[in-house]
């Protein structure tokens, strides 16, 4: 009984290590192919439009309401200690250094990451990836490399948009609805933000772009290994891609914050 348990545990560890090795190799192959000419500008623009431009609406919406909630919660917490004037600073710092990059990455993963995993997964089960190989086209270069670049361009820009819209949301709930002086709100926002905080947010956005794109493309690419063939396989890959990306976002968020503070 105990032997079987240990055996099963060992097997799981081996499978996880194998999977980790494969994903690192997949990432390195994708990274290497970014720098090998001819450069895939058209594909990068296409994916940037898909990951970036098409996510603007959802980022604006979630950013605005996140800012409003922080403004509302922050006000009632700060008013207890008579520091409601610091609301602008609280909203801005929370968004820029923490919630902006994390929520943006989660939303973009839910919208574009799931789509990447599903699209590449369907290509795998319908032999389109094999077809690329028979045409002497490197599938990792063709499918993954342009998406990393597109994500690295899109994530920081969307994060910046989320931050700005969130600060505006906090302004609406804190100043317009709860009566904090508008000049005080904006002034504390401007005074509190340091270049270090903005850079920190961008480092996170950059890291999340690389990590989530790698996980989503990897899950789609190896659908047949982990989730099997068919529609069910693709749906499992897509779900796993989103769940694992979200977990990775929180893990990397902690690691980066640890080194930044």
């Amino acid at each position, binding site marked *: 009984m105990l032997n079987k348990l240990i055996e099963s545990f060992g097997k799981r560890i081996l499978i996880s290590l194998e999977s980790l090795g494969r994903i690192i190799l997949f990432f390195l192959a994708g990274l290497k192919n970014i720098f090998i000419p001819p450069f895939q500008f058209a594909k990068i623009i296409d994916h940037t439009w898909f990951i970036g431009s098409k996510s603007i609406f959802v980022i604006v919406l979630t950013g605005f309401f996140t800012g409003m909630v922080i403004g509302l919660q922050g006000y009632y917490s700060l008013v207890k200690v008579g520091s409601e004037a610091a609301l602008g600073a609280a909203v801005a710092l929370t968004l820029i250094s923490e919630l902006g990059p994390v929520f943006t990455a989660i939303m973009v993963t839910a919208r574009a990451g799931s789509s990447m995993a599903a699209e590449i997964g*369907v290509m795998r089960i319908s*032999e389109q990836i*094999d077809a690329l190989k*028979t*045409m002497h086209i490197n599938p990792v270069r063709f499918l993954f490399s342009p998406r990393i670049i597109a994500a690295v361009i899109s994530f920081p820009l969307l994060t910046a948009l989320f931050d700005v819209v969130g600060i505006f949301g906090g302004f609406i709930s804190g100043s317009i609805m709860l009566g904090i002086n508008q000049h005080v709100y904006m002034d504390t926002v401007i005074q509190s933000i340091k270049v270090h905080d903005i850079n920190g947010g961008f480092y996170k956005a950059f890291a999340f772009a690389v990590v989530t794109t790698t996980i989503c493309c990897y899950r789609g690419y190896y659908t047949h290994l982990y989730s099997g063939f068919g529609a069910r396989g693709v749906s499992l890959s897509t779900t796993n891609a989103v769940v694992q990306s979200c977990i990775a976002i929180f893990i990397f968020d902690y690691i980066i914050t640890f080194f930044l503070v």
Partner: protein
Amino acid sequence: MDTPLIQFIDVSKSFGETLVLKRLNLSIYKGEITAVIGKSGTGKSVLLKHIIGLVNQDSGQILIEGRPLNKLSRTDRKSFHKKLSYMFQDNALFDFMNIYDNIALPLVENSTFPKDQVKNKVFELMKQLGLTGIQEKFPAQLSGGMKKRVALARALVTDPKIVLFDEPTTGLDPIRKKNVHSMIQEYQKKFEFTAIIVSHDIPEIFNVVQRIALLDDGIIKFEGSKKDILDSHSKILNDFIDGKDV
């Protein structure tokens, strides 16, 4: 007879517990069209995928002009694979690309042809295959037969030296079927490529090919020319041709 262009020697392949190819032997000769016939699920597509490098054998050898494929240098293997083209059973067209881009893809990604030359080549091929006017459509908007022809166009656009056709006429009406067969014959004569066709079109396929191989239960049970078929008293071959369970 000359040295075969491609030769399978005792090739075995299994997927999990299932042994698909069992010490299979087969010879493919340069400039000929060889048909691989056999029941569904007997490993015909797996056999083709060994040649293109999508699947590797567990044991045995695949010789290319007498040299083991797995012992060729990286450059030689790459140059051999560049001579190949593959038409998939389910077409494997890229559903996010229009028809023009699907056909042009191997040229665009691998060659330094000017755009105009690629365009001319693709349109010429589309015209020959009766695909004129659909260049802006997407695969999902086409009928099964049209998709087949697009896949055929993509397989031929690079002027390959060896073409592997995995059931190129499945799902086509008899007229289109005949057209595709004539097209393969015509192109083969024109460009003198070597072709291997996995097919269930019996007896029509016999008019297209020079050699036939019957694959059954992971083994080639008959291999020979059309004349050999006519002269053959092989029960297994005659039963298969007559549609009796082998």
